[in-house]
């Protein structure tokens, strides 16, 4: 049995993240570096998860190169994204806050 799920892609041996090459549902069993886990969250195609435990302040390595710095401790198998990684160059802009506010307002409108 392989040490890591075939749905998870290791791009370079130096990497501490794996890339989902197929969607993975929350609570689905996954195998990461010999460890059997239940997916802590849903992973869409192209999203990253921790190949090993990552500590706040550690570099995030993908393609064998540093793509940012962890802003929180990340357990093995957890989602690695904007909530726990910052750029070493320019901050990442997302529509997350706007979307949450919009969806909350629509919920209020429905009731």
């Amino acid at each position, binding site marked *: 049995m392989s040490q890591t799920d075939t749905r998870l892609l290791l791009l370079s041996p130096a990497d501490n993240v794996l890339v*989902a090459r197929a969607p993975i549902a929350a609570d689905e069993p996954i195998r990461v570096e010999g460890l059997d886990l239940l997916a802590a969250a849903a992973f869409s195609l*192209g999203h990253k998860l921790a190949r090993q435990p990552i500590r706040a302040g550690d570099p995030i390595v993908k393609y064998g190169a540093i*793509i*940012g710095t962890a802003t929180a401790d990340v357990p093995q198998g957890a989602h690695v994204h904007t909530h726990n990684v910052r750029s070493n160059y320019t901050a990442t802009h997302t529509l997350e806050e706007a979307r949450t506010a919009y969806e909350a307002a629509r919920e209020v409108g429905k009731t």
Partner: protein
Amino acid sequence: MTELTGYLRSDGRKGIRNRVAVAYLVECAHHVAREIAWPNRRDAHVIGFPGCFPNAYAQGMMERLCTHPNVGAVLLVSLGCESFNRFQLESVIRESGRPVETLVIQRSGGTAATIAKGQAWVEAALAELSTQTRVPMDVSELVVGTVCGGSDGTSGISGNPAAGRAFDRLVEAGAACIFEETGELIGCEEIMADRAVTPELADILRASVAKAARYYATLGFGSFAAGNADGGLTTIEEKSLGAYAKSGQSRISGLIKPGDIPPKGGLYLMDVVPDGEVRFGFPNISDNAEIVEMMASGAHMTLFVTGRGSVVGSALAPVIKIAANPEMYQRLSADMDVNAGRIIEGTASVDEIGQEIYDLVLDAAAGRQTCSEAMGHAEFILTYKSFEPIGPACLPA
């Protein structure tokens, strides 16, 4: 093997299309230009510059675009009071041997009369262009650009490396290939500098990325859209490393700026970030601005890798759309020329998709319409910028 042919222009370059450009010289003339082109919109494409203030970059870009090898004739549409130097633009086009006419709306009887005159001119120009014959053309005479847009976590592991393989093949065959954009190469400066053909060029490549990092830091946003994060990209460095894969493995022969035409075959980086202090806003406000700059540097066509699913094409030069993401390909397959998502599904290798892209470049050059072209996409955007000229160490000896 596809036999390539092209339309020979007076500067020795050859076009893979023979289009009429209808060019507005200020936004105030845009509607009239659009109406003029509309009845023949597959062959007559609208380009233009919206600003009323003069700008050397825009002037140079319009001169390059109106004498692009894919352009056979040009109709300029002026309101009459804008600052654009239409006299110089018309002279440059005339000297290139192309049919050219300028219509000034204020002197041509207004909207309706100018549209009527313009439509008649375009009809006559198309009739003339249809009599031109194509001459044999070699792969080494092609200039091909590459951009990516709507990138996600799949772009850097499927579409971009496959486009890179196609670039390697083209460079090997003697073609000129151009990649960009320095704002999306932040974090790649050292590995990229290692591929420069001279130590001087290595320093220039590093400096171009440092300039981009400063420029975007001042603006407060990286070259990173909200959709990039939805698709799994977390930082600009991560996006950059994926984008960098489009350049393939060839040595880097030179650095050009928009409108500089590669002097010979090889791989070139286009520095798209303005020089000097930050002015006029974001370097390229959307993907089509990058495609326009590729065309101004002579690109006959542009490879466009997309993960989230961009549907755009371009005026004047075809766009080959490469889907990086297999889920998106299922949703937008009619918009996509190549399904690089098969690499992620494990049903094709990077080499196989690279070969497919290379073959499609030759087919499109030979006249096959790309998906966006067949559906009438002809987007165009040009805004204000300012650049210093490149130095001699930027180009191969």
